[in-house]
């Protein structure tokens, strides 16, 4: 198999990425793999600038789209501030909070690259604390539920399921208000 970047040399390494629970593989030759890991892990001083890193990442994402044959058939645009995804690719800056929703499919793998993670686990604003804490709790309970089912602890699982339903009910009522 030939390297996905240079398309000339034999594949020496396969990188596996997990994006939204979907495994994807990138096959690289030795040289391209070295260039790739250099770019993402070693920053020379004193010129290092996080925006360069971002630009590198944006390029890598582009390349990834190309190699995987993912074509952005039409220009995606933020429904609120009208920033296009291409504008973002050039500047590395988003335009408004709605951009995060409208570009989510593209941003999620990027965030994972940048932070090793794409889900917030930190502070929650006071105003929405109740709601978001419940959402977080539900997520955690759902994980526990799966584990319990795997372990065949059905009685425990039923309790957990009831708890989830109860919390979801509370949230729903709040949303209707």
């Amino acid at each position, binding site marked *: 198999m030939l390297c996905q970047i240079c398309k000339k040399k034999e594949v020496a390494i396969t990188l596996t990425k997990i994006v939204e629970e979907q495994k994807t593989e990138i096959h690289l030759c030795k040289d391209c793999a070295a260039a790739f890991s250099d770019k993402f*892990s*070693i*920053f020379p*001083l*004193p*010129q*290092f*600038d*996080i*925006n360069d*890193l*971002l630009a590198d990442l944006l390029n890598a994402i582009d390349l990834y789209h190309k190699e995987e044959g993912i074509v952005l058939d039409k220009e995606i645009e933020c429904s*609120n*501030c009208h*920033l296009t995804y291409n504008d973002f690719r050039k500047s*590395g*800056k*988003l*335009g*408004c*909070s709605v951009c*995060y*929703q409208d570009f*989510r499919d593209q*941003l999620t793998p*990027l*965030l994972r690259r*940048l*932070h*090793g*993670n*794409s*889900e*917030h*686990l*930190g*502070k*929650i*604003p*006071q*105003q*929405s604390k109740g709601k*978001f804490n419940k*959402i977080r709790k539900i997520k955690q309970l759902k994980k526990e539920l799966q584990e319990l089912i795997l372990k065949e602890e059905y009685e425990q699982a039923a309790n957990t399921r009831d708890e989830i339903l109860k919390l979801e009910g509370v949230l729903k009522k709040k949303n209707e208000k």
Partner: protein
Amino acid sequence: MKNKSIILKNLKESSAEWTSGQGPLSDIVISSRIRLARNVEGIPFSPRAEQAELKNVFELSRQIVEEDSLFRDSNLLLLDELSPLESQFLVDKHLISIYHAREKHPYRGCVFNQRETLSIMVNEEDHFRIQYLLPGLQLNNIWKLINKIDDKIEKKTTYAFSEKEGYLTSCPTNVGTGMRASVMLHLPALAMINGINDILKAISKIGYVVRGFYGEGTEVMGNLFQVSNQITLGLSEEEIIDNLEKVNQQIISKEQKVRKDLLANSKSQLEDQVWRAYGILSSARIISSTEAMELLSKLKFGVELEIITYPDLGTLNKLMLLIQPAYLQMLAGKDLDPFNRDLQRAALIRNKISG
């Protein structure tokens, strides 16, 4: 609210608490800092906002400063009203970023308190960049303080926040907690044995960034390094701080070890270097900022190792700010060409360290 010239006059004469040379591990750690990026829901991020929207954000910051007792002794400056020199002076003071000083959109602001521990950049790339600085290694204390300030500001507005990505920011490198924590280290011993690059390589691999004295994209001078977290999403604030503190502890213990070795094996050479630095600084008539930073670092090293007992660390930390080009010109009360800056700088240093 006080007018601009009074605010700047006071600022010229006052010095920031983080330069005091006190706090935990102050022989290596100059200061700790936490910055939170926050945006107002419903308004595009500052570079993409309309003039009226930028004005709304600025007025909101004015309202917060005027109405909340937490900001009783704080000032608010509108950068549009400042000259390029005055804006650069705020950069030299570490109150705003270089980007904030040079950006073109209107209604950029800077809030800061008397101790210069708290500052808020208004309409930088995010609507609010709240930062808190203290001397020495004390990230946990800073987090407690800045967390409260963040809550106070939130009482007056609604933050742009999503359940998945957390606090939403103009650049995806800040999203999530919106938190950048950093520690400013003085590492002369590691620099002396060329040990810095290895450490930098190692820590950058695990998600930390090192920058120069004035932050992003700036040069390293005076052996001062700022180590900060790169990851802002997927970890809690406490975890980010805890990890960063551990990384810094490791660098600090390496520096301590090399210092010990140097003292044991080359004490005379060290003493020679320190006293030579003192000699030049206390008698030079013309000095560039690069040379001054280098020699001040040597002298500071001497004080940290107790080779020399004066001037104190606070004086030296403060000097490192005072000798910056814009600060010097503010003190002189006029624009100075490079040659006259070098004259002025030498005089200022002589006055401060031999006094």
